[in-house]
């Protein structure tokens, strides 16, 4: 069936099978491969995107439910290296990533956290990240990055 939505601020109209997952639509049909798939049980969070401003595991949502909505992926956070989102800068500055596979999901989750809680403490960040697995960093620098990213987002707003 045909659906239309906004993807990273651009209008998109596509034909999708009703059983297609949002993650597959984004990656396979629309070739935005920044959104990653790390599991098949909705556990890892590598696939997190924003739908209508909220973080969502795109492997757990049917593409058709995005019809009429607004979807933002990691590619939609910045247009160039010179225009990174404060959270992207914070991850880079604080070594919040190693292999980079969890990173898009971490960024999208972190930004949603700060939207709801502009000044999260360490415990709140750790709890929020329950649904995002990182195998590389031990989460230490991810937590540090999010604290810094939240501060930068507050300063920018």
């Amino acid at each position: 069936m045909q659906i239309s939505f906004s993807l990273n601020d651009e209008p998109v109209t596509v034909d999708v099978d009703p059983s297609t997952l949002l993650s597959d639509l984004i990656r396979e049909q629309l070739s935005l491969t920044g959104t990653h798939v790390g599991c098949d049980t909705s556990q890892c969070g590598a696939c997190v995107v924003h739908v209508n401003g909220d973080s969502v595991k795109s492997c757990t949502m049917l593409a058709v439910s995005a019809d009429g909505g607004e979807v933002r992926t990691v590619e939609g956070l910045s247009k160039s290296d010179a225009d990174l989102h404060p959270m992207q800068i914070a991850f880079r500055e604080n070594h919040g990533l190693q292999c980079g596979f969890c990173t898009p999901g971490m960024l999208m989750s972190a930004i949603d956290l700060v939207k709801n809680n502009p000044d999260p403490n360490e415990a709140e960040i750790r709890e929020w990240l329950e649904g995002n697995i990182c195998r590389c960093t031990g989460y230490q620098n991810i937590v540090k990055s999010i604290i810094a990213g939240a501060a930068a987002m507050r300063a920018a707003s």
Partner: protein
Amino acid sequence: MNAVVGIGSSPKRKEDARFVRGKGTYVADIKRPGMLAGVFLRSEHAHAKLNSIDVSKALAQPGVKAVYTGEDMKADNVGGLPVGWGITDKHGDPMKEPPHPPIAHDKVRYVGDAVAFVVADTIEQAQAAAEMIEVDYEVLPAVVGLVDALRPNAPQLYDDVPNNLCADWELGNSSAVDAAFENAAHVASIELVNNRLIGNPLEPLAAIGEFEFASGRYTLWTTSQFPHVVRLLMGEMVLGIPQHKLRVVAPDVGGGFGVKQFHYAEEAVVTWAAGKLGRPVKWVAQRSEGFVSDAHGRDHVTEAELALDEDGKFLAMRVKTLANMGAYLSTFGPNIPTNLYAPLLSGVYQIPSIYCEVKCVFTNTVPVDAYRGAGRPEATFVVERLVDMAAREMGIDKIDIRKRNMIPKEAYPYQTPVIVEYDSGDPLGCLERSEELADVAGFEVRRAESASRGKYRGLGISTYIEACGLAPSRLAGQLGARGGLYESATVRVHPSGAVTVLIGTHNHGQGHETTFAQIVSDRLGVPFEDIDIVFGDTDRVQFGMGTYGSRSLVVGGAALSQASDKVILKGRKIAAHQLEASLEDIVFEDGTFSVAGTDRKKSFQEIAGAAYVPFDFPLETLEPGLEEQSYYDPVNFTYPGGAHFAEVEIDPDTGIVTLERYTAVDDVGTIINPMIVEGQLHGGIVQGIGQALFEHGVYDPTSGQLLSGSFMDYCMPRADNFPQLVIEPHSTTCTHTPMGVKGCGECGTIGSPAAIISAVVDALKPLGIAHVDMPASPNHIWNIIRNARTPVAAE
């Protein structure tokens, strides 16, 4: 930042520029023109005869291009998956090395063993068709446990491998050890299990095979830590593709931890299928598929004893280990619990004699191979648990007993009784600093505070040493390696003075693009921004053994350092010509070639330009161009080490173990980029804590089904399981690597499991518990508390 960035500073990582924007290129992201999708049908039985496979219905499904079975590959003379390291058993016989076909024929030997490969236009079509394949299995009894597999009447995996025994291996002098035990004042002993782990790099395995008719060349894109080795093993031994007709590309790879340092069946199958079909074929593992198709780690059962004199000085150690190989030998399977295990049993201690016996055993489980640390965490766990046990039994403080037995700093180089000679180290320095940082002195107050809330609190310790920087080829060859373990680097200086480095190691999170650029920037005085590091493509990089065993900086960095020296020498020759001086008079400093004692000089960039404009070169003595290559083969392993303290609190009502504090002081040698080293330690420590508290690969003993086969059942460490870790380096300089580096990728994973279990046991001291097997999960601990024979209230 357009500047020279030297050794010891922490520039932000080059690779992050693409990763934070979602612009990395992982194998699953790659699309090739005309690409087909492949799906494996895998055995649902742990052990069964394959009577017949009927693929006719599957072949008739829409979009299906082919269905391949093991018989098809066999008929096409496809070889078995090779083993990269052979061991010899204690009687001088080679290990049993049964064939490992990429797709099973005759028999399946574990749940997940590939039975057929379906190729279709889309993944959905391939999946649907796979379900239509009819396999007639004759189910056989299975065995998954090590002790069970060696019982006389155990199911046999192979007709020609009696008792499922791959090899009965030994190291050390057993009679010296026996004599020392006879004269010992005290003998401490322990039986322990090193739990099976599933590495789970966050990016699942994936592979794309492609065949280009015009050139007759194959390309394999794969999630690999060592593309050149895959080219060698798959090309030469499995598919018979000549090296120059095969390109292997490992682009951005989402974590490895050892799991991606083997040649996998899937790589060979997609490449072979692409050749048959003349179209690219892609396979991407589902996560739950990866649980039964990625090689697993650890899985030992060990009995160990330590002989001590009346002062608590170690006299001798005796270790007997059963090591699970799984159903087939993976690339380095037999090497891990033998050569990377027993030589580390001396730890950081003076132990006059050591004897170790390892039985490598086949079972109906996924093949077991290296996982971060690979053999060395297992050795550390044995040594450190044994030392704790001895301290407890002899009434000696567990920190004190370690100090009494440590190798003093001035005793290096130190020859252990188990092959290896440690070049440098300061275990006591690490321990004392760690003790201070962990506030060991204040622990009893914290314990009392926990007790006041009805909680048990424990302090644990572990020291460790590892052998890394794999490896001196000569020694590796003596130990059974079937290839060398050197590394190569090319430094290509462009006419502008910008530099491209081509290196045989592989970056999958370790930050090589940054660290290696720092080395070149430091050496050549070239701005950091002007240096690119290329890896992971056998068509671009000359050769390499890849990344594992904390070898990239130690071995690859050394090759890079040597190649840089050669560039400087060539640059001096060009400068000598340009400045009309003799070579001996040309000095190179801070990116400038100058004639000693004069103000005549040329910048690195000027010399680079001149190298490519050789109008007046004396061509008989000076070639144009500025590009140099070096192969480096280390003279010894490197020996990072350290001392870790863990502090846990246990809730007796739930069995939940909460990690309250963690302190690590590590000796990793010279540090090139402190930020990256700290990140490696963080990740390693958390993976080790994962083993100690959460992770467990569990099989049903009767059916051989993997019970922990998804992220729902296999407990991965999460952000909320950890406090901030306290980490500090305490480095001594490696005496034989060019920059004094030792490596740091595995330190955390080696040191932390024993520290955690030491803390858990200490917490349960009021219950008289002497040892706890991993993982110390809530259920496990709750049961231990409940079953404790003499329960007393928390002190």
